[in-house]
């Protein structure tokens, strides 16, 4: 069980959160103009990185806010959290 620092509520047990997968996959503004391939890319294709991954979590059993987490998927270490709309940390 991780300890995740909700950017709003502070350090909490993982059980209060739900995972939302890869971050920064922006929903296309004009889906109708995408090819089937491009749409499939948005819908299904994932980097599924082994290493530093930017991902979304929701403090589902707390403030219910979504936010971003930088986590190393090879050892589950969390390096940073940041709010939606904020720029990801560069290093």
């Amino acid at each position: 069980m991780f300890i995740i620092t909700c950017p709003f509520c502070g350090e909490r047990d993982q059980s209060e959160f739900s995972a939302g997968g890869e971050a920064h996959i922006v929903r296309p503004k004009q889906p109708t103009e995408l090819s089937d391939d491009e749409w499939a890319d948005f819908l299904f294709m994932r980097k599924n990185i082994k290493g530093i991954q930017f991902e979304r979590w929701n403090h589902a059993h707390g403030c219910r806010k979504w936010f971003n987490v930088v986590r190393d998927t090879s050892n589950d270490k969390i390096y940073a959290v940041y709010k939606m709309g904020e720029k990801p940390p560069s290093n």
Partner: protein
Amino acid sequence: MSENFRSTETKFLDKTNRISFKYNGKKYYGYKGDTLASALLSNGVHLIGRSFKYHRPRGIMTCGSEEPNAIVQIGGNGPFTEPNVRATEQEIYEGLEASSQNCWPNVKFDVGGINNFISPVIPAGFYYKTFMWPKKLWYSLYEPAIRMSAGLGKSPTQPDPELYDHNYLHCDVLVVGGGISGIIAASISADNGNNTVLIDDKNSLGGSTIFQDDENFKIDDEISSVWLNNQIKNIKNKKNLIIKHRTSLAAYHSYNYLLARENLGDHKSLNERSNKLRQRLWKIRAKKVILATGSIERPLIFNNNDRPGVMLANSVKKYIDYFGVRCGNKNVIFTNNDSAYETAISLNKKGINVTIVDIRNYSSSILVKNAKNAGIKIYWNHTVVDTKGYRRIKSIQIMEMSNDGTNVIGSKINLVCDNLSISGGWTPMVHLFTQSGGKLKFRDSDQVFLPNIAMSDQISIGSCNGNFELDDIIKNTISDCKNFLSSSTTDFDLIKVSCPKQKENKNIWLLPNDKPLGKTKPFLDFQNDSTAKDIKLAMREGFRSIEHVKRYTTTGMGTDQGKLANMHALGIISETAGVKMGSLGTTTFRPPYTPLTFGTIVGRNVGTFFDITRKTPMHAWHENHKAKFENVGQWKRAWFYPKGNENMDQSVQRESKAARESAGILDASTLGKIDIKGTDASEFLNRVYTNAWSKLGIGKCRYGLMLNEDGMVYDDGVTTRLSENHYLMTTTTGGAANVLSKLEDYLQTEWPELDVWLTSVTDHFATASVCGPNSKNILKKLFPNIEFNDETFPHMSFKNAELDGIHCRIMRISFTGEHSYEINIESKYGKSLWEKCMDAGKEFNITPYGTETMHLLRAEKGFIIVGQDTDGTMTPIDLQMDWIVSKKKYDFIGKRSLYRSDTMREDRKQLVGLLTDNPSEILEEGAQIVQDEKKQPIEMLGHVTSSYFSPNLNKSIALAVVKNGKKLKGQKLLVPMKDKTIKVTVSDFIFFDSKNERLNA
């Protein structure tokens, strides 16, 4: 009267408290504080069980959790029975029953012992190579026989009468292990102001120092055990420190999340277990962790090293010094190091005959000198080559070793003995460290793996960190703790320690023998019967990785998880392969550290607490009226209300007819309700539903269909526009939480610019849905001030109202096809509202109906249920709901996916109605539909999603999804069942009142 082996007084047992227990049906006595093992040994009992594969007799080997042999069934045959309990850990209590395992008819004579004689033909992995021919026999003979021989103890066959509890614990510092280093660490930590927890698996603190009475081990000029005893008294008064006894650490997960099991009842007699709590699982979050888990002694690997009476030397010392029990009258100590000499001296002091066999040439240790001075005979540079004695060791044969240690020379010497105490050095218990993700390093000098890089904030101290001598243990513990806890001074800064030093290391993983390896049985894993030759066989066959060897030979896979065997397996592999041990790595140590009871892991989450039960405000009413309940997610929903002896069908037929003929009432409180406010509320609905919302009039309701981004139907429900910028959305019962979370997700991440606020009000409102031709009359009675006519209160509209001064929201909407109203009221009035409706409806025979009737009524009307008529593969077009998909809207969730090549296909599975040729034949939900039964392979066109006998149409009706269904209307299809084939005709899926006349009646 058998001989009493309790030879000395001991302060660790309560001699006034004599306890009787049964072992294999025979009554024995011990004292409070004895383990089952010490009590049996005091009665001269060594033979405890039979090994897994060869059924060889085995005895007590150790005094702790590493015990591979002495595992027993506890608690008789009743509900308190427990298999595979280590006699070395189980404290005795009055009335304890224990029995041997894996033997028939008994442990002294075991038929399975025949396996020992065929052992030459059944080496490691033999079963992979045989039992393949003839194939038939595999199923009829071999496989059942293999399955029959499985297992050690017996599973309980009755439910558990005891309870288990959970508790979270957050602390600054957790110290694991109450030996000398753990006690010092806990003391330093608490003094430094840290909120500290010390856990220890025994019933009292002190580890092995607490029974160290040798003059050569001194701390601050006191004998080490005396000094430690004072320290234990001190720490008990520290206010920042919580000490937990009989609490063993089970698992060390990442982020310093640890699980510890506290034993509350297992040491008590059944009468004393009054509150029924057996064990408690502590879920610990520690900011810092100090591991002081100690080390365990290694065995030595030689021919027939597994007989009852062969024990680890330090355990023999504990039995004599702590429990006052001698493990034999004629002891031989077989060692490669100095520590075993402590055992020899202890035994000698108590007047017990001891001889020492040492594989080294000499040692200058003071302990050795003392042993010599005591007149103990020492055979230097000798090894044991064989042992004799079936149910108990009787003698051993030793030989001198060649200079390089690879061979034996000279002639055999026979030594008669009834105990062989072996010591192969020490292995630090790094299990918890590696469980937490830590990486190990290898120390060549004494061939141990030690903690190296930790993944969380922790240190290892004492012998689990490779400090084996008292002065190292104490001094390093103090300095490491000071660093780790940033503490500048401690009470121990001026400590003085004196102790003998370990001299002359010599380690041979597999000792030499006069016979070829193939003719010997040098056991590594005593429980699973894997030997050194099995390891070599595996390597010969190409299994090189330690994991391969382990799996092929089953070494380290027993209930002790290789605590004794693993190091030797690694040693032999590295020697055989010519690879350095450090580069070989270890197998992964997996949680739990010692086996953890399922009940403990589950805690109170059994029975009632297995899962949450959600109830509606009217639940008590349904219960009082004998409703049967259906589980819908975590909700209990009234399923049907049987009258008298009615079965479900009869109830449902009655309820359905009543609802259509006069009036019915349904508890719809479980539907999800989301309050939506904000200037962009309409735009938001446009984006999340397939249809358009901006033009919905205030006070009007509209049905909406929500898709996933993949275009498949996700949820549905009616949303009401309460005012310009205020809507009330309803969702399906099961979808409520997910829909709200999904909508919040879109608002927070994709559309933060929208001014929309969502608030769940699912539990705030109770909902009674009154339907049927008389629903209007009932509502009129309840709400005399409201005009109920189609002009002022048409279908799909809403009104605020008051009932006895309490505000209600009334929606005229229908899921049954009948004229119908949903009344929402604050949920504390829900039950009362329901009762009012029942009262007002009495003259109209208002009939409560449950979910089953609701499903039937809506099926007559052709309304879908998301999750029953859809399965995540249906688009709105497939459901023939094209009308609800706005062509004008630029975008909505899932829209783009409707235009992919497969979703655009015209011959997808589509929702249709099915009528059976025989109108009284009811199709089975889930039945498959075909056109041609004869064609192979059969092409399945779809399946029946909903099926009922309609009392209102007096025939069977069904909804189905059928490939190309839209074009098949009127066609005959087949529903092949196991024993017959049912003929059906594809029909429209609205069976009842397709012109909606009843809605407006």
